[in-house]
């Protein structure tokens, strides 16, 4: 009986991270820098916590927006030629 209670407490009280810990992990997760254990704890938490899930989705969407929506400047055509020429002249 006592053993079962101990397991229940361990799994249900200590297995679940707090919202604060979840938000601390959030950037590590979106940046791909979290350990597998941190990732597991994080996923477990957001499965049950809507506010943390929403914050995570917002962080993810901002990161995606930055990657996909910012205009990429074309490299000026003469830049590579000019670099190569300068190197040839200094070599």
């Amino acid at each position, binding site marked *: 009986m006592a053993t079962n209670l101990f397991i229940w407490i361990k799994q249900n009280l200590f297995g679940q991270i707090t919202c604060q810990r979840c938000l601390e992990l959030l*950037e590590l997760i979106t940046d*791909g*820098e979290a350990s597998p254990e941190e990732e597991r704890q994080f996923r477990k938490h957001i499965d049950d916590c809507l506010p943390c899930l929403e914050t995570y989705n917002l962080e993810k*969407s901002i*990161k995606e*927006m*930055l990657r996909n929506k*910012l205009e990429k400047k074309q490299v000026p055509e003469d830049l590579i030629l000019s670099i190569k020429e300068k190197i040839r002249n*200094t070599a």
Partner: protein
Amino acid sequence: MSAEKVKQDYTNIEKERIFEKEFLPHISSMFNFAYRLTFDEDDAKDLVQDTYLKAFRFLNSFQQGTNAKAWLFRILKNSFINDFRKKSKQPPKVDYQEVETFYNSDNVDVSMTTDLRVETVQHMIGDEVSNALNALAVDFRTVIILCDLEGFTYEEMSKILDIPIGTVRSRLHRARNLLKDKLRTYAKSMGYNK
């Protein structure tokens, strides 16, 4: 980048090969990084050219098989700080005493993100995103570019910027909060969050 301490002795043919195959493929990322630092195409060209010339001059400090892109970004960042920023009319550096102590893992600011929605972010167009990013002080803009646009790891960023990983994380955290502030203000002015 610890490889920088080990001097190589490349032949001219090897130097040319490294330059062509390992350095030049990053020119688009380099040019875009330079442009986002300087906001001027000619200045960005000068900065990239200067970076590549330095990279060639110090090629014996580069070890093949290590991260050429991070090595080049580090040179570009240093050139920008040491040579370019002195000549330009960039605003003075941000005081990190105040901003970096702002980050405290015991006090994560949930409230700051609550009124910015995923749908709002998804509706924003490139110019709006660009304006928000460009409005950040250069050191905050830099960490977002390195992490979110270029996909560098915290460790690579730490080497590029010469700061500890903890500082990379705190600066990134602060930069993202500032960016969210700009996006939120923009969304409100456009009536997105009704």
